[in-house]
């Protein structure tokens, strides 16, 4: 070929970073960006968890004083006693933080940004500048959202789902529906932009920057999950963005996309006409359903990746896992109406939506059976990472089976908007997906920092969390069966009073389990500085991230260009290093499939 000058070769890719700002702040390095996303998710999850403590405490002591709450909001908690509206504000922020800034960030943006390029043998993402922008836009979105806590009217009270017209008519609808809701709309719109930039990178990188020999089928399952998730995410967030725009316009520019005529809110006739509250629900859930799969698919990929390594044998079929993830991704776009069965939508549509919803059970079951079936004949190694991966399977099953009920409109007549739904989504998102994040952290921490986390503390963290989350969220299903309505700031109805002992049990479990998360935080921070130095491949794993130093250099593979000879599932074979063969090892394997 012709000569290539060095500057030209680096076009689109960057040279080694220089200076503190370039290295740690406005970094183009996907690894730094991944860590930044992780740090953001960590902050968000602890805020979200504390919000949940405040909520749970208020539910069992509605008139109880919470020390210090009046400093967060004089209006929301005069004398430290939470008002009903402030409960709803905290609930809205809890949901928004957890769904967007934790569950979309941690398993997907954080680990995906860090490991996708490495796992496919690339030097960086395809568009490092867009990548950097994606994090900083997300960070600004976070700041905008948090500002809602500090304005006089407080955060919005309409829930993370922000149904219109409650969210659209403005301050007449109640406290928190002034600037709080505007900030929410702006924050989420920004989040959409950040997410779109990120997905763009994941897709282009996976398609075009794979190393030699890294065919699509040789990519690790975590990479596959990130890729499929990016495809879903691209289309889903592209719909939420216009929805938020229209909502903000209804609130601030007097349009009536979601507000019908003749509404009398707080004794004031609203000057709007012709809008449709159901339109908001359709647009929101068209995004919202794929969003929950955006939360769980990377988790499935990470767990599969860690499981293969921990059980020291390949999964029964990686291809089936891949095709199942693809079908889940595809089906996720056809089911959004199951959030709207009793919404006033055409009841025939409700029936139509229930069939693909029930159908999604099939790939989910297939994946679960593959995971379980792969354990047969395995030689399971128990580490903090593998415990959380195994725990994920249990949690995914628990959360998934409640879906059987909610997928059917006739049963949903009874269970809609009860704690049964809250139990369902907390088990799959709030527990299972978070377990995958924990597993990923314990697994990849040595690579990211060059140090090992404490296995002892990790195991304590696992056991308290595993038992604790069951204690918190299993009872939610019983409450739902008894008809316990959700989003209530306290329980005053006759039929709810007998359920208070269950709520007290849940609150205690939540406080204890939450406290145990500080063990994780301590482990994370202590090990970062004082952990045992990590070898290159502490878990005897096969994928490309374990071929480079811990932590990796700025360009991942140095001047090397890795060549891939195998898929990442070569465990339980006679390798030169042990019972495994790494992806870039040229050695031949008997009976390689």
């Amino acid at each position, binding site marked *: 070929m012709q000569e290539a000058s060095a500057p030209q070769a680096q076009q689109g890719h960057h040279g080694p970073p220089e200076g503190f700002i370039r290295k740690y702040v406005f970094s183009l390095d996907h690894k730094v960006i991944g860590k930044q996303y992780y740090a953001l998710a960590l902050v968000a999850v602890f805020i979200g968890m504390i919000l949940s403590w405040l909520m749970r405490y208020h539910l069992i002591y509605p008139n109880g004083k919470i020390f210090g709450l009046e400093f967060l909001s004089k209006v929301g908690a005069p004398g430290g006693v939470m008002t009903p509206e402030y409960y709803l504000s905290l609930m809205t922020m809890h949901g928004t933080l957890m769904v967007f800034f934790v569950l979309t960030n941690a398993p997907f943006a954080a680990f995906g940004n860090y490991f996708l390029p490495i796992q496919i043998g690339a030097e960086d993402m395809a568009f490092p500048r867009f990548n950097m922008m994606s994090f900083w836009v997300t960070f600004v979105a976070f700041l905008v959202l948090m500002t809602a806590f500090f304005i006089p009217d407080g955060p919005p009270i309409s829930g993370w789902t922000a149904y219109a017209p409650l969210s659209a008519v403005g301050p007449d609808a109640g406290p928190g529906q002034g600037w709080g809701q505007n900030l929410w709309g702006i924050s989420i719109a920004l989040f959409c932009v950040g997410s779109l930039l990120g997905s763009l990178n994941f897709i282009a990188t996976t398609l075009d920057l794979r190393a030699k020999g890294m065919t699509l089928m040789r990519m690790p399952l975590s990479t596959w999950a990130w890729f499929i998730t990016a495809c879903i995410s691209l289309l889903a967030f592209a719909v939420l963005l216009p929805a938020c725009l229209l909502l903000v316009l209804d609130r601030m520019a007097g349009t009536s996309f979601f507000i019908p005529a003749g509404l*009398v809110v707080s004794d004031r006739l609203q000057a709007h006409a012709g809008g449709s509250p159901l339109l908001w629900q359709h647009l929101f859930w068209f995004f919202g359903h794929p969003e929950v799969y955006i939360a769980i698919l990377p988790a499935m990929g990470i767990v599969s990746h860690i499981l293969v390594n921990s059980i020291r044998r390949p999964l029964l079929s990686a291809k089936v896992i891949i095709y199942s993830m693809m079908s889940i991704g595809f089906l996720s776009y056809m089911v959004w109406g199951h959030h709207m069965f009793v919404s006033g939508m055409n009841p025939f549509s409700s029936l139509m939506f229930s069939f693909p919803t029930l159908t999604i059970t099939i790939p989910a079951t297939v994946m679960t059976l593959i995971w379980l*079936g792969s354990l047969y004949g395995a030689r399971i190694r128990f580490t903090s990472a593998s415990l959380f991966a195994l725990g994920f399977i249990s949690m995914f099953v628990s959360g998934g089976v409640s879906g059987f009920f909610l997928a059917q409109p006739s049963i949903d007549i009874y269970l809609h908007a009860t704690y049964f739904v809250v139990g369902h989504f907390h088990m799959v998102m709030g527990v299972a997906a978070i377990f995958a994040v924990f597993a990923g952290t314990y697994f990849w921490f040595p690579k990211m920092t060059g140090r090992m986390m404490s296995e002892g503390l990790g195991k304590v963290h696992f056991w308290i969390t595993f038992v604790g989350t069951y204690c918190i969220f299993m009872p939610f299903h019983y409450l739902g069966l*008894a008809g316990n309505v959700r989003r209530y700031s306290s329980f005053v109805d006759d039929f709810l009073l007998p359920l208070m002992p269950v709520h007290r049990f849940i609150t205690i479990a939540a406080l204890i389990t939450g406290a145990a998360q500080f063990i994780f935080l301590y482990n994370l921070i202590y090990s970062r500085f004082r952990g045992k130095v990590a070898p290159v491949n502490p878990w005897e794993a096969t994928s490309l991230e374990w071929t480079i130093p811990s932590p990796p250099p700025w360009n991942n593979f140095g001047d090397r260009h890795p060549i891939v000879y195998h898929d990442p599932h070569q465990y339980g074979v006679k390798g030169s290093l042990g019972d495994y063969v790494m992806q870039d090892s040229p050695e031949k394997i008997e009976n390689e499939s």
Partner: protein
Amino acid sequence: MGKFFAVVLTIIALVSAVPIVRHTWWMPPDISTHGHAIDEQLTDTMAEAGFSFLAAQLLLAFFVWKFSERKDSGPIKSLPGGAKGLVIAALILVGTEMLALGVLGQKAWASVYFTPASPNALHVQAQAGQFAFYFRYPGADGKFGGLHPDKIDEGNQNYFGLDPANEVEARDDIVTGELAIPANREVLLLMHSKDVGHSFYVPELRMQQDFVPGLDLSVHFTATKVGRYEIVCTQLCGLGHYNMKAYLNVMAQDDFEKWLKQKASEQ
């Protein structure tokens, strides 16, 4: 570690199943004509879900117990049948199960939503607003007066915005704070929202339907047991959402007529 995991998981799975099997916290008894189909559907689903749950958790526990890392380094055993067997099993079993639930389940749904109300159903209108439910009966003329949002005046108890001065039909409308209905007579509930989204939920009635501002929605049902049941709002509507409720008062036919006369005289 593996054995400990298996034991803990088994205990959790079995303990979780107890309140379900014993109905410790369960649906209240059904007082509707359409509810038994829903209850049956729920029980069938519970059997399948319960079986799947226990099977999966116990299998996980068993495999973890049995296949913890051992010292032998023989060839890896694989599940007989491999992936293919599992996929086919899943497709057939889960596929039929889901199809059955979907197809059978639509009967209960259809009985609520695809059958029209009978022509002699009692018409009552419900209005949901922040944070109360009000109900309106058409009175002797059998017709409802029009709704005029600009005439709503809660201070003077004109919750619906009626205009009796200018509309004949509105003059005999009966507005109440509780929903009284006769037992064993079909009721057509016309649902109107004054401000934001709300929902009508009576667990005993197996009935839940959102109020959507701008949409004329309705549900119909027949209650079979005399008694007082709570109607609660289940669609987040603002700070008073937790407290927004009314009572469904199912009465014998005579008692209902007496009640209605009483209310009419109070208007």
